[in-house]
């Protein structure tokens, strides 16, 4: 018996293939965007875990210097000969095409056997690893980015991405380091050993590093992606909800007949569930495939972003587990269930003789406007509470979510009022009919228009944020990169010679020496600056005292970056505890866009006195533009500095901006996709409505409006609604941009950006939304124009 029931129910789709396509499209798109984003996140997280398991020895504690300096080999030997089983590591970076590559030097003699490092490296490779010109280990993709080292690299396919493994001596050579960065503390220590303080008092034991450390830094980025995925999923589900509900409603007569012919309500519901499940499985499978393609296309940008912004290592290629595929199909089923729950519930509860009212079903939302207004108020209240009482990144996202939902719920009310105003101003019968009819159409289109609103607002908001960021960042780079040339010396004993060489060839030489350390329990960089007027003239400070630069010149106080100030709640004149057990005073806060780490700037003399192990290899040179090339040539030819070690200010700027561009390439792509989904939502809604609008159109036709006129009016109506939605989306988007800049960014990255407005972008987006609405309405309008008059006439003869 189930067979004929299914035949009857499913035959609906055969007669309405377009409705079926709509449903599948909506569901596939929702699934695709969702699972695509999940794929990106999953791949990144997997890469973090791999990298962390290599770098962190899979949960081994570490020994490191409290001031972040390098550990002398003698200290290592002293520890070992005292009975401390530690294994030395050299951390470094190699520059390559496509961003830095993590270099990890390890000691094959002492590396614990159960670490990922030991597992990644066949013992048979050890002899080649050890000694001068030892080999380097990398996976194929990473190796391809280091053509200069080609003959020294051995491919290890399973090695974590963006990572080079080498013997400690090889790594020391490559990064020009004399000691070790840190040491693994082996889990099984011998019976007797002295206190750490009596052997190496400058070292501390750090708990095992985990993938979470990197996860914390990149959380905001992934949250951003997830939010977009959810938004798109919601928009997709709106389409599904619309078409599933309509399909149920249109089939009411069938359901009534089936009940009359002796099919129980239970069986009908079961058959409908079966039907939905089939649709969900098909659409889910399609969506997962599309999501995979999307993720694969976006991943290189995501990987480059994470590398550039956070130094995280992420694969360029997707390797997804079967669980991900299942998850994608699962989310399609869940989405379908959510979207269809209402319809199914009504079918199950429906009296057998209830008659079908598809148009009423679609228009039902007109009664819901009051409820929507109430819902909007609740969402706004939740949003405000989240910020007022919750705070944090999650609070920020609740604010954004609540704000956007409220705006979406308010849209029909606002559009309805706008249309009322317009109809009052319109003259002539056609105009009046047009506005009245538009208003009547509104409930049926409101879901699609909400989707459009969300997509547009997201576009305006994110676009404004990105463009503001770009404008601020570029200006900031101009100021911050005060030196004209940047040079790196390989051997610190060359420094005096370099200074002497540059003495009369440049305006000034500014050491850019730094040490990586822990400040307030989190990794940070400590830099030193000399007293030079160029800093006071160029360095943009967010807050400062009148005598800030004088005090730097005197050697007292420190500047900190905005990230550190926000994270620890520092303001001017606060005491700043620094590694090594001393405290200085915060005398200035500067913006430091794009840096995930806290930063401290000390007078150079203080830096070298407190931290003798600073990295002294980098210098900035002030030189008039006209002499720049000559000086570069002199440095390479006369002084013998390799060309690679001299960087032009412009090159750094270009590199920084390129990282920035890639950071937001993904966001931009998701933006466009969301807009596309909204366009599809409008198209499907218009097409659905078109089939039911004949009774509305036929009287106008009978009274003398040609089908062409009607078609044109339909087209114009879509444009008008899109334009009105866009007008509302603009303030919503700007509000969103403000929230992103003033709340989300501060929470996620630790810096606040000034908001810039870009009206030209809005014009472009407005045109785009009109284009989308126009495209979506052109087919239904054309269908109306080509409609046989008999169809319209039948409206009057058919008593329905």
């Amino acid at each position, binding site marked *: 018996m189930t067979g004929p029931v299914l035949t009857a129910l499913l035959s609906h789709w055969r007669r309405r293939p377009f409705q079926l396509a709509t449903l599948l499209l909506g569901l596939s798109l929702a699934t695709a965007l969702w699972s695509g984003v999940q794929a990106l996140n999953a791949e990144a997280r997997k890469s973090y875990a791999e990298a962390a398991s290599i770098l962190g020895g899979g949960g081994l504690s570490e020994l490191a210097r409290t001031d972040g300096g390098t550990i002398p*080999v*003698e200290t*290592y*030997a*002293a520890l*070992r*000969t*005292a*009975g401390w*089983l530690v294994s030395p590591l050299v951390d470094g970076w190699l520059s390559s095409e496509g961003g830095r590559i993590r270099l990890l030097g390890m*000691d*094959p*003699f*002492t590396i614990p056997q159960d670490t990922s490092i030991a597992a990644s490296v066949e*013992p*048979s490779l*050890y*002899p080649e690893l*050890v*000694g001068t010109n030892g080999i380097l280990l990398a996976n194929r993709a990473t190796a391809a980015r280091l053509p200069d080292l080609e003959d020294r690299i051995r491919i290890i396919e399973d090695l974590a991405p963006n990572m080079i493994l080498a013997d400690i*001596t090889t790594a020391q050579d490559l990064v020009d380091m004399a000691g070790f960065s840190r040491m693994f503390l082996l889990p*099984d*220590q*011998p*019976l*007797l*050993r002295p206190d750490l303080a009596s052997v190496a008092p400058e070292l501390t034991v750090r708990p095992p590093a985990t993938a979470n450390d990197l996860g914390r830094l990149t959380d905001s980025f992934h949250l951003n992606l997830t939010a977009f995925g959810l938004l798109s999923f919601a928009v997709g589900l709106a389409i599904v909800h619309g078409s599933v509900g309509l399909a149920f409603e249109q089939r009411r007569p069938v359901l009534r007949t089936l009940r009359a012919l002796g099919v129980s309500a239970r069986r009908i519901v079961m058959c409908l569930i079966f039907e939905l499940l089939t649709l969900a499985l098909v659409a889910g499978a399609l969506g997962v495939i599309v999501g995979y393609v999307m993720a694969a296309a976006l991943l290189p940008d995501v990987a480059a972003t994470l590398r550039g912004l956070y130094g995280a290592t992420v694969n360029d290629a997707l390797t997804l587990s079967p669980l991900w595929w299942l998850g994608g199909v699962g989310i399609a089923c869940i989405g379908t269930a959510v979207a269809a729950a209402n319809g199914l519930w009504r079918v199950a509860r429906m009296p057998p003789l209830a008659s079908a009212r598809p148009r009423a079903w679609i228009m039902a939302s007109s009664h819901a406007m009051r409820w929507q207004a109430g819902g909007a108020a609740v969402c706004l209240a939740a949003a405000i509470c989240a910020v007022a009482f919750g705070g944090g990144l999650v609070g920020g996202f609740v604010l954004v979510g609540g704000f956007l939902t409220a705006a979406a719920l308010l849209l029909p009310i606002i559009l309805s009022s706008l249309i009322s105003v317009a109809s009052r101003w319109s003259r002539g019968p056609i105009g009046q009919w047009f506005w009245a009819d538009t208003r009547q159409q509104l409930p049926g289109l409101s879901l699609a228009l909400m989707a459009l609103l969300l997509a547009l607002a997201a576009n305006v908001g994110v676009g404004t944020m990105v463009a503001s960021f770009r404008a601020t960042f570029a200006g900031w780079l101009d100021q911050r990169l005060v030196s004209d040339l940047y040079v790196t010396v390989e051997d610190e004993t060359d420094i005096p010679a370099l200074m002497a060489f540059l003495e009369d060839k440049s305006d000034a030489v500014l050491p850019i020496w730094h040490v990586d350390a822990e400040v307030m329990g989190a990794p940070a960089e400590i830099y030193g600056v000399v007293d030079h007027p160029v800093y006071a003239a160029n360095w943009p400070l967010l807050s400062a005292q009148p005598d800030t630069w004088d005090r730097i010149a005197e050697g007292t106080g420190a500047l900190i970056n905005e990230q550190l100030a926000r994270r620890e709640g520092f303001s001017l004149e606060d005491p700043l505890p620094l590694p090594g057990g001393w405290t200085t005073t915060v005398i200035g806060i500067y913006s430091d866009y794009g840096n995930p780490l806290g930063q401290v700037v000390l007078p150079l003399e203080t830096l070298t006195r407190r931290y003798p192990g600073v990295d002294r290899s980098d210098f900035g040179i002030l030189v008039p533009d006209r002499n720049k090339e000559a000086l570069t040539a002199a440095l390479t030819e006369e002084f013998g500095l390799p060309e690679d070690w001299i960087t032009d200010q412009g090159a750094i700027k270009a590199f920084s901006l390129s990282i920035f561009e890639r950071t937001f390439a993904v966001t931009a792509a998701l933006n466009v996709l969301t807009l596309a989904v909204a366009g599809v939502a409008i198209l499907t809604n218009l097409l659905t409505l078109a089939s039911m609008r004949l009774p509305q159109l036929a009287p106008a036709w009978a009274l003398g409006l040609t089908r062409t006129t009607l078609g044109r009016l339909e087209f114009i109506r879509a444009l008008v609604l899109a334009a009105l939605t866009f007008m509302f989306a603009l303030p919503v988007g700007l509000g969103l941009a403000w929230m992103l800049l003033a709340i989300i960014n501060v929470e996620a990255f630790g810096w606040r950006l000034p908001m810039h407005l870009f009206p030209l972008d809005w014009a472009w987006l407005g045109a785009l939304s009109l284009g989308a609405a126009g495209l979506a309405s052109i087919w239904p309008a054309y269908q109306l124009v080509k409609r046989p008059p008999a169809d319209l006439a039948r409206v009057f003869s058919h008593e329905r």
Partner: protein
Amino acid sequence: MNARALLPLLFCITPSLAMAQGFAELGQTSEGYALPDPATRFTFPDDHGPHPEFRIEWWYVTANLKDAEGTDYGIQWTLFRNALSPSGRPEDQAWMGHAAVSTPTGHLFAERLARGGIGQAGVAVAPFEAFIDEWRMAGPDLATVSITAQGHEFRYDLELSSNGPFVPQGEDGYSVKSFVGQASHYYSQPFYSVSGTLNLPKGEVQVTGRAWLDREWSSQPLAPDQTGWDWVSLHLSDGEKLMVYRMRDQARGAYVVGTWIAPNGLPEPLRIGSLEMTPVEWAEVAGQLLPVAWDIAHEVRGIAIRVEAIYPQSWMGTRISYWEGPVRAIGSHSGEGYLEMSGY
């Protein structure tokens, strides 16, 4: 005891001899190492120190110990040097330490690896010090040394002093290992008396006993047909010492030679053909059958000794695994000593 030439193949996790051989060959491709010379005579104390011109070398101490109740213990303290290149530079040396305690309740062992040139391992002559990490054998000279080593569940601190001379093995210290002429420089100090403390999971144990030091260096691995070795050192009841090794050769049978050492330290080589060393009892150790009792016979010398493992489970589960533990001797002579078996 040249057979231990296999052990310094530091990086072979697989204990298979074939692989070890393969690696040995690899290490040998860079010719340039010195080869043992029959004309060489030892000069002390210089020869107690490292010979980096040779590829492999070790300082190998085994001791038979007893506590106050007469319970048997055995300890092993070993430092291997393996050159990564013939340069002789300290940074081209790899070092490996093995330490073990055989007890009635189990065999405890530990292993350490280190690279040379960074102060983590090495050997100095005067005053004598051989060390890897915190494991040390040190004293004013090699005749009087303290040795210590530990793992995460045991430790020992022992004082060794010898009342006899260093004894060259083979022909004046030139020790031939195979039918085709592989050889090493090899001397021993079998006359140490020992006292000290063992730190065991059950607690501290005061022990006394006798120890045996082997010093050996070479550049050649086993001959291609040789699959492993069995080595015995014995302290006999009348003050004599006996060392016998048996190189197992697939093609020509076993290559068995040894040294009979008089109480005054005078060595008498027991040459190929005159000695027999035969497994008589087998036991399952670490998943395989190993001989845990041997008959050693030399007609001319009147030797007919049965050697039995005191703790048959004395298995060294290190990267290169082998059996090494204390033994008891009965028969024509009685006594105690150490047995090593590798390549099974």
